[in-house]
């Protein structure tokens, strides 16, 4: 299920699925995190050799990303979920606008700073490292946070 970190060339990715939700709807019920995570994980795993098991595996990290967005998103605008397929992996991207008070911390790309417990994506990094999935967090020109996870198409790949 797990493998070494990979950083595939973004140019090789193709759109698989996209979902945009109003943030206030998304944050209205915590249970939606679970529902959305399972939905995305099922798509991530659909071409895997063992789809059910890989969906369970990938939903762990996807759920953490979705829960992080749930806790961090400013309650205006949209939250975007995008799935992209590359040659070696399926990429999950979740984009949202964070609360202004958190923006500076999200903009700090220093990985060691992110390992500090106060950082919003601390737990996500710990989990990703434990299960050996590559995750990244970045902010775009519109100050939106984009959380990305790459799930390998082949076991052990």
């Amino acid at each position: 299920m797990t493998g070494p970190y990979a950083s595939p060339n973004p140019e090789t990715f193709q759109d698989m699925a996209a979902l945009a939700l109003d943030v206030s709807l998304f944050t209205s019920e915590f249970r939606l995190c679970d529902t959305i995570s399972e939905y995305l994980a099922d798509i991530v795993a659909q071409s895997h050799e063992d789809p059910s098991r890989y969906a369970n595996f990938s939903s762990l990290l996807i759920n953490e990303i979705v829960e992080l967005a749930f806790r961090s998103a400013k309650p205006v605008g949209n939250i975007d979920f995008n799935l992209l397929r590359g040659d070696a992996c399926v990429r999950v991207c979740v984009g949202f606008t964070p609360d202004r008070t958190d923006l500076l911390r999200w903009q700090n790309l220093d990985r060691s700073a992110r390992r500090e417990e106060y950082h919003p994506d601390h737990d996500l990094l710990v989990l990703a490292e434990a299960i050996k999935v590559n995750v990244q967090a970045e902010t775009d020109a519109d100050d939106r946070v984009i959380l990305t996870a790459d799930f390998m198409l082949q076991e052990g790949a």
Partner: protein
Amino acid sequence: MSQFSSSFSAEFDDINQEIVLSGRIRPSSPSEMAGVLDVIRRSLNSNGNVIYLNIKRVTHLNMTAFRCLEQVLTETCKTKTQRNIIVVASSVIAWSAPLFQTLASIQPNLSVEIYDSAFYPGQTFVEDESFIPILRTQTKMTWRHEREILPRHGMRNGLSIADICCGIGDFATLIKRQFEPARLVALDHSKRSLDYARRVAAEFGLTSIEYTYGDAAQMLLADNQFDFVTCRHSLQIFDRPDILLRELFRICKPGGRVYITNEKNSHCLGEPHSESIRWTYEQVAKLFSHFDMDVEMGPKSRRLLNDAGFDDIKVESFMVTNLDGDPRDFADVIEAWEDVYAGQMAVRRGDPPDFIRRFRQGFKDHVLAALHPKGYAGWPIWAASGRKPY
């Protein structure tokens, strides 16, 4: 001592010094974990040098829950340095061992063990690859009957189907070819059997069967997904068939059907030498019972399905005989049974040589009945199904 919430629970088994945590644990805040943590905390404080935390049946977890567990486990590791905590994870749940290993790497008295065999008592007896041809022959013999029986239980083209405990996957490939399901998931707990199943499916050009490694008692498949769920010859080798049936019920759509087959081994028969054959198969039933398996389950199917909540229950029996196709196939199956039942199981039970000799004789007489030009040999099977209410 136990604590249940709607989706997860913790129970302490003080005989085995085991905390069993199970379910889908994705709380929105630590407060939702309070009851479960209380059970874990009190269990960890009980007597004993080793405490097991069984997470085999935790299918989902979030970091909120993990941090809560980490805190309780770390507290105990630090305050009870002589106490060893062993986290028992399932190989089916690919994330659980690596995640809990992060705790084991910090706490010297905490370790993680991966549980990946002996899900069911009978597993070790039939996982030998030499048994595969026999399993295929058995399916070939039963399929002659089941291809006619299945439509009476609701099987038709285009359904979404799950074959649970699919073994080497031969039944799934037959279903695929005969009934062209819209979706077909085949689950088993044996990686070796699944590897074989994938190879066979690929050889037949059957690319759309979803083989999945899993524990049938806690499947990763979502609720209400399948129109038709099959589970053949497997409930009888579970020590807790009610748990398995609960899972079959869960994944079946309302209005869908669960189809099971089971045997009544003591009713295997043959002529000539009927008495010897009868005695041996009565002993087979007792032997399986010794290992917590019930190969007399066939006629109990109606009750089991009823107790599990199904309605519109249908039950029928059929007899696989030496007259179905090549009698040599029947004889091969009996010889394989003799090897496993007399050669392995009876030996493991500690049966004396005289018993084993007499036990083997019944199988030999059954083979003789199968191959005798005027002989007759039979193996009775019960096929039953129930509908999940709307």
